[in-house]
């Protein structure tokens, strides 16, 4: 049963790592703005050949994987 000491030690360490990650995320400002990033991730990555004059109206806001 003494394995429990080890297991609890590991579980608390893992939890503490997550706490550390959370605090780090807060510190780096990830919680300051919870709206804009959600919009930003949907923008397409621009490529040169984009923007021909006639673009379809309906095709807005969907991400396309581009390299």
């Amino acid at each position, binding site marked *: 049963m003494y394995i429990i000491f080890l297991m609890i030690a590991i579980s608390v360490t893992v939890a503490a790592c997550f706490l550390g990650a959370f605090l780090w995320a807060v510190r780096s400002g990830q919680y300051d703005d919870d709206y804009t990033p959600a919009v930003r991730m949907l923008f397409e990555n*621009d490529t040169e050949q984009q*923007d021909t004059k006639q673009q379809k109206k309906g095709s807005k806001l969907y991400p396309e994987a581009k390299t």
Partner: protein
Amino acid sequence: MEAALQTNVQTCYHCGDSCVEETILAHDKTFCCDGCKTVYELLEENNLCNYYNLEENPGITGKKPVAEARFAYLDDAGVEAQLINFKSDNIAKITFYIPQMHCSSCIWLLENLFKLNPGISETTVNFLRKEVSLTYFPQKTTLREVVTLLARIGYEPEITLANTDGKKTSKPSRTIIYKLGIAGFAFGNVMLLAFPDYVDFTQGLQRTFGSFFGYLSILLSIPVFFYSARGFFTSAWEGIKQRMVNIDLPISTGLLALFLVSIFDIVTARGPGYLDSFTGLVFFMLIGKYFQQRTFDSLSFDRDYTSYFPVSITVLKENGEESSTAVRNLKVGDRIRIRNQELIPADAMLLHGRAMIDYSFVSGESEPVEKVVGEVIYAGGRQIGESIELEVVKEVSQGYLTQLWNDTVFSKDEKQNLHTYSNIAGKWFIIVTMMVAAGALIYWVPRDMDMAMRAFTSVLIIACPCALSLATPFVHGHTMRVFGRNKFYLKNTGVVERLAKIDTVVFDKTGTLTEPSEAELTYTGKQLSEAEQRAVLSVMRHSTHPLSQRISEQLKGTSSPVTGFQEFAGKGLVGEVNGMLVRVGSAAYLGVPAEKQKDTLKTTVYVSIDGKVLGYYTFYNVYREGVQQVLQELGDKKIAVLSGDNDHEEARLRELLGKEAELSFNQSPVQKLEYIQQLKARENRQVLMVGDGLNDAGALKQSDAGIALSNSVTNFSPSCDAILDASAFDRLGTFLNFSKTTMTLILLTFAVSLVYNVIGLTMAVMGLFTPIVSAILMPISTLSVMTFATLSVKYAARKAGL
């Protein structure tokens, strides 16, 4: 687009306005004005047309041309240094406030600014705060170029005197998130460690590892006690120092008792303690606080005159050369030039030109005031018409308007509101708790000493009114969100409670009860024939005078050619149309004898044709839609109107407001402030002030709740407790009633939490309070209070139609 085609009205591809006045066809698209077309072309050139794909017609109308010379002051190194956050030789960072941004297209374009100006390295948008953080290379571009570019594409940043104050806008506080994170972490882990106490088959585990689990729990709870829960302790201590009992006092006593008893139990191996309850309570209460703190980031409630004044002004040097100077550096004797629609930043004397000053925002006068050369013009007015030259007679900080801010009202700290429901409840709570605890002690001491201690501490623990302290933040937080959805934005949740107690409502007239941009026009006198009317209109069209423009807006029709047109400043116009000599202007100009003039206080414009006075136009205020309804809904409250305008509207206001209402006219900002003070001091009233302009700033601050009415909530509004979008003005009564309802809801929530407290207390005095009881009671009571508060507000809001 389909809708546009059906109605046969073209909408602008850029800004979505309907093209009424002119339609420009270019690049297979329609534009409403040159400004919009130019922006489109600029974006197209730089391959930024994606802007138009993200949202339809995302642009900001370009009808108002940007005078780019205006930004010359940004070249000034001193101004630049005040605005910029950080600058080194090859990099500079600045944050702009851009209230115009409204959609995802805006975010996209603003974050792709570097494509329009290679000198910009990076832009990051914070949409909720309407801020753009911009990094640029000072060798490649200048601050002025960056701002000019933003203005050109329609996103002119708001740069006001307040930006140069040196007060950098503070980042949102992250403390509460840290506290929440730590409390949540500890709660989860302590809960796991406490689990063996609750179920039978793990009793063996508990016996073997009990003290290990206990000490580990203590270790995990220490940061919660000293960091996460610190806010409750300091607030309670502040209360004690001021000899006041607030809600945090019983909470702190409860938390302290929980923590100390648990440590004592664990160290003396009496039991597992209540640390899971302790960390859980702190966690839940912090959620309540977090909920309460979330407000409307993009709105600014604490603005003073510095946010209204521009940063720079055109100064004329002795040789007549124009240069841009920071307003702060204006000195007495400087000659300044004010163009159409610009603000006069300091009290100044008119030297040249025809001044038509719109004071509606500053003094509440509804019509522009005409000033002649030699008169002193007070700061804050907006010039309409041609550009004028003035000589500064007082420095900005000494002006008539800025003096208002030197009043003590503005230097007073926000008073802590101690008479809130929860604080009063807290007071009774601690009295009752102490009595019950003492009773338990007296009962048990002769019988069982050990039991006596247990009963005493468990009463303190169970009586922790945590559910109580959750009720208010949740009910108010939800109410604030309901209001926000209906375009009524509160500064913080405390305002809800103050709104509920209001018994007197004071309105400003100009711009609050009336629609500032409109005026009703009536014509009195001999009926004009069609030809005569057309002649009058034709002459009016030639004038840029605001009154002429209003009249010509009303008189629809086509104009005829005018010969011999002349305009006399401060008097009127003359012109010949089809052989008719038309003169329009003031009574004195047309030679109307004083005794024949009617309604001298009203704004009137006389008309004469071929030397014969035919009649006059009178301007009336147009009251906002829904004024009647609002006043009806406020029927049980005392109503007053404070107007900076003269009393020519008295009869109409009286009709609108009824006999009871108090009407005061020609009120200066200071008089308004004093009026509110008197209402509060002499009649002990709870006053709500509704105003819109700088002249109401003192009154708004002095009142129990000040609401600033604004046609566009991101525009400047004086410091206040709440901002109400003008389109929601008709619901003011509903808002007030709803805040009253929420107070009932809080009482109901109190009742719910009281049930749990009674159950817990009964068990506590009987000495039956154990960790398992606390582990069940605590989460149930907090969760049910939170759910009840949330659902009841939602239900009440739906019922109230909000």
